[in-house]
């Protein structure tokens, strides 16, 4: 009973401590306010308090032994989180550089326009992500929820990084500089994605499970299992090379060779199918990223 009471008190106690320790930051002197910003910060704080209260209600109910809650509690928490994310995202475009809240880097605090652009984008991203998570929590399976949460997190982070780095000093730089920077970001993003994919493809080939798909595939190819490990090393190594500034050409050469080999295997050994298209797309992307990376 004592443990249950302590558990029930943890969340509000933590919230109170955080609130009390952060309060001087906005209640204290020394911050200049544009009109209406107080309203925005209070709205965000209210939404956070509502989220914590709803979580607390869930905790108290399950501690009090509401049996019907057990099976739906995990979904309810995820759902509440999605709603909370969307609610905070809604207000994000209305924030301005401040002491407390937001994506606070030296650049955004210094450049009001960058802050505004970034937080408008972040608001859209958070509302979309929060809505997707809330809907997923209501209708999808546990795996489905995990997938949606990972996908929106990665997608949102990538979109924000794009806005942050492309929109950087948009006001004082020449259009050509901005175009070049945008291109660099695009090429590097592609390199990053390809590197991650090939590293993963390479690692997948290492485990020597005799029933595994790769062992059987390389049996069918007929060079022996050393070739499976060799291909894995080529793919993982080629992927890592893509991340090194001067490694694009050797990396792309290795990966193209691997993809051409995979094409030959598809044509002569296992037969073509949807996977062949994926191999072709990867081949084109690898060659494209090498060409685009010429300085």
């Amino acid at each position, binding site marked *: 009973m004592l443990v249950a009471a302590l558990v029930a008190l943890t969340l509000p106690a933590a919230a109170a401590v955080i609130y009390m320790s952060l309060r001087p930051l906005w209640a204290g002197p020394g911050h200049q306010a*544009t*009109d*209406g*910003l107080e*309203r925005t910060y209070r709205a965000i704080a209210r939404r956070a308090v509502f989220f914590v209260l709803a979580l607390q209600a869930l905790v108290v109910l399950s501690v009090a032994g509401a049996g019907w809650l057990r099976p739906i509690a995990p979904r309810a928490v995820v759902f509440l989180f999605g709603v909370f994310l969307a609610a905070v*995202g*809604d*207000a*994000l*475009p*209305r924030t*301005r550089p401040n002491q407390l809240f937001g994506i606070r880097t030296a650049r955004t605090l210094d450049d*009001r*326009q960058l802050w*505004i652009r970034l937080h*408008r984008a972040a*608001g*859209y991203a958070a*509302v979309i992500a929060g809505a997707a998570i809330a809907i997923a929590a209501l209708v999808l399976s546990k795996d489905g929820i995990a997938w949606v949460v990972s996908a929106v997190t990665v997608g949102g982070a990538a979109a924000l990084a794009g806005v942050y780095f492309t929109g950087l000093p948009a006001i004082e730089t020449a259009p050509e500089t901005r175009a070049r920077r945008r291109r660099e970001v695009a090429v590097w993003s592609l390199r990053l994605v390809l590197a991650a994919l090939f590293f993963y493809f390479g690692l997948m080939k290492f485990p020597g499970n005799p029933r595994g798909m790769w062992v059987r595939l390389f049996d069918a190819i007929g060079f022996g299992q050393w070739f499976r490990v060799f291909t894995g090393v080529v793919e993982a190594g080629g992927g890592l090379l893509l991340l090194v500034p001067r490694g694009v050409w050797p990396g792309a050469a290795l990966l193209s060779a691997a993809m051409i080999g995979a094409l030959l295997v598809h044509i002569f050994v296992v037969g073509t199918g949807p996977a062949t298209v994926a191999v072709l797309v990867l081949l084109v992307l690898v060659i494209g990223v090498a060409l685009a990376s010429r300085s």
Partner: protein
Amino acid sequence: MKVPAAGHAAFAALADQTRRDILNLLRAGPRTSGQIADAFHSSWPTISRHLGVLRHAGLVVAERQGQEIYYELNTSVFQDVVRHLLELMKPAGRTRRTRRRRPRHQEA
């Protein structure tokens, strides 16, 4: 003019085509009221009054920079969505008014 309650002010402000056009213009960055008025056919006092409504509703904020007062877009995501929906439901045949205003009269 009747001043609506804070909660309804945003919707009342969004219910006007010129004010939605002003918000759309401000998406590109902050502008002074003079710059905004130049982009519309309406006169400066009219635009100024529209800006007052938008500001009262919290859809824009005024930021002083030296001598000038710049208006910044301050809509929430939800208000942006409402604005887009209102644009979509706009009766057909009305043209947008964001065309650049011709120079006033050829003075001097």
